[in-house]
């Protein structure tokens, strides 16, 4: 081969027969193509039609997408998604940074056990999480019980039946789920920072706060990008949590795009509109991932 002398990873020898790699890829491509790529293409196609799921569908161009901008309920749903991003992503990254920085500054015993505990919410089915928190938020549930116990009776309320408080209450469940993952991710990043850097900073008289902004924060930029990407996508894909805790209510106060996809397609019978919301959601996920990674690369 001409480039057999090139050192490093690219030194892959060509397979004996040219079709061999494609044969290895064929089963994966067939299943992945048939049940993910084709449906994705079909979703684009559906989104350009007006169809109730039963009768004839009519081509209407981009009307379903225009409707997303004009439909009050959908605008609200995307607005709620932004609020959820705050709770699923910004709060955990903020908390995680402080926690991880504290914990990597000194050798703490029992860190392994701690890691296991805080990561636990990640492996519990979201439906189980939702059922549990519904009990916690119930009018006579433990949260209100605790508030009454400490004399804050005025704060007690039906957390999931309140127009103002339900969305933040659902968001807090997301913070509970994400913070452990983010903290463990950031701790892994911080443990790779050379101790010499901190020693040097201390000799220069830097306190813990300056140390954090001058050394720790820039060193884990990559991990922050990953944490933001993961949790923002999780926030945008929140379906089961909303479905089980509130079904978008009370009123429309907690509806989110992913719930609107389900409601439109399978409850209202607006299949074209549902597909358009799904495709828009996909584009938003791609755009946010690209922007977050861009910012992480350049700064």
């Amino acid at each position, binding site marked *: 081969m001409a480039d057999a002398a090139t050192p490093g990873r690219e030194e892959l020898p060509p397979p004996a027969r040219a079709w061999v790699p494609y044969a290895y890829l064929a089963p994966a491509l067939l299943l992945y193509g048939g049940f*993910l790529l084709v449906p994705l293409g079909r979703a684009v196609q559906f989104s350009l039609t007006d169809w109730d799921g039963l009768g004839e569908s009519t081509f209407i161009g981009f009307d379903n997408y225009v409707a997303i901008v004009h439909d009050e309920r959908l605008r609200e749903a995307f607005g709620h998604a932004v609020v959820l991003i705050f709770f699923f992503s910004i709060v955990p990254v903020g908390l995680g940074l402080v926690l991880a920085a504290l914990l990597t500054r*000194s*050798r703490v015993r029992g860190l392994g056990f701690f890691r296991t505990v805080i990561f636990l919410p990640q492996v519990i089915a979201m*439906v189980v999480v939702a059922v549990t928190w519904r009990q916690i938020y119930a009018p006579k549930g433990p949260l209100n019980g605790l508030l009454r116990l400490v004399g804050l009776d005025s704060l007690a309320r039906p957390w999931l039946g309140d127009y103002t408080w339900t969305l933040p209450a659902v968001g807090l469940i997301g913070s509970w789920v994400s913070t452990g993952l983010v903290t463990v991710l950031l701790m892994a990043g911080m443990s790779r920072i050379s101790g010499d850097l901190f020693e040097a900073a201390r000799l220069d008289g830097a306190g813990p706060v300056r140390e954090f902004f001058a050394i720790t924060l820039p060193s884990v930029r990559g991990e922050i990008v990953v944490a933001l990407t993961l949790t923002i996508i999780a926030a945008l894909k929140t379906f089961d949590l909303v479905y089980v805790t509130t079904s978008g209510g009370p009123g429309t106060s907690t509806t989110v795009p992913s719930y609107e996809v389900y409601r439109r397609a399978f409850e209202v019978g607006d299949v074209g509109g549902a597909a358009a919301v799904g495709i828009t959601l996909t584009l938003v996920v791609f755009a946010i991932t690209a922007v977050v990674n861009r910012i992480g690369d350049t700064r």
Partner: protein
Amino acid sequence: MTVSAFERAMNYVVLTVFALVVLSPIVVVLKLALGPKDAAASRQRTPIHPGNFPEAWKVGRFGEYMVTSLTVAVLVVVVAVSVSILAGYALGTMRFRGANVLLYVFLLGIMVPTEAIVVPLYFDLRSFRLTNTVWGVALPQIAMSIAFGTYWMRTYFRSASRTLIDAARLDGAGSMRILWNILVPIGRPAILTLVLLTFMWTWNEFLIPLVMSPNGTVRTAPLGLAFFQGQYTQGTALLAAGAVIVALPVVVLYVVLQRHFIKGMLDGAVRE
């Protein structure tokens, strides 16, 4: 690194408080699950009521739903992982036209939200009479798992020893033999991690089984729990017991093999 005794003490306080915040909802659900299920049960003198578990199991039909969940999860894990090993092997160790494009095509699938594909999946698989069948619930999840699995296995095969592969090739071993006799046995940890993650994601999945089996013939455990919450409103003890039952298989796996879960989810997240 040396820090003051005060800071060290503060660290333990922060650790403990944070761990308690994470654990308290879990403690609440366990307490509810072991509590009295109704007024009659609360008049009994026993402090805990483990009988809630078998009763929830029976009333909520969790036995049936767990078998369905297990069937779907085993199908998805076996098909998706084997197919991903083959695809990852090609992408990680062979040079061919279109390799890069194909890698990006698989990466795309990791980001596509289920919500985008679930609508056409339902209407198209319905025309093939696949809705309300185990395959109708499993196939979309196989496709989603292949996206991550192929990427994951490619990463492993790229890190696998080049000299080992070359030596085997000089001995006249074909690509199939190199894969199954050398790379798969050495790659057991990476494969086990992929098996665990795929199992967990499939077990916990909600939207696909909800949509793909509208009449409930293929009802998985999480759906059974959501359904139970809607049907059974008399008390919280049995519901909490059901929640524990549904979460338990994955939590047990996690406690035993936590390194794989944590490493897998962190490494899988860090894309190049």
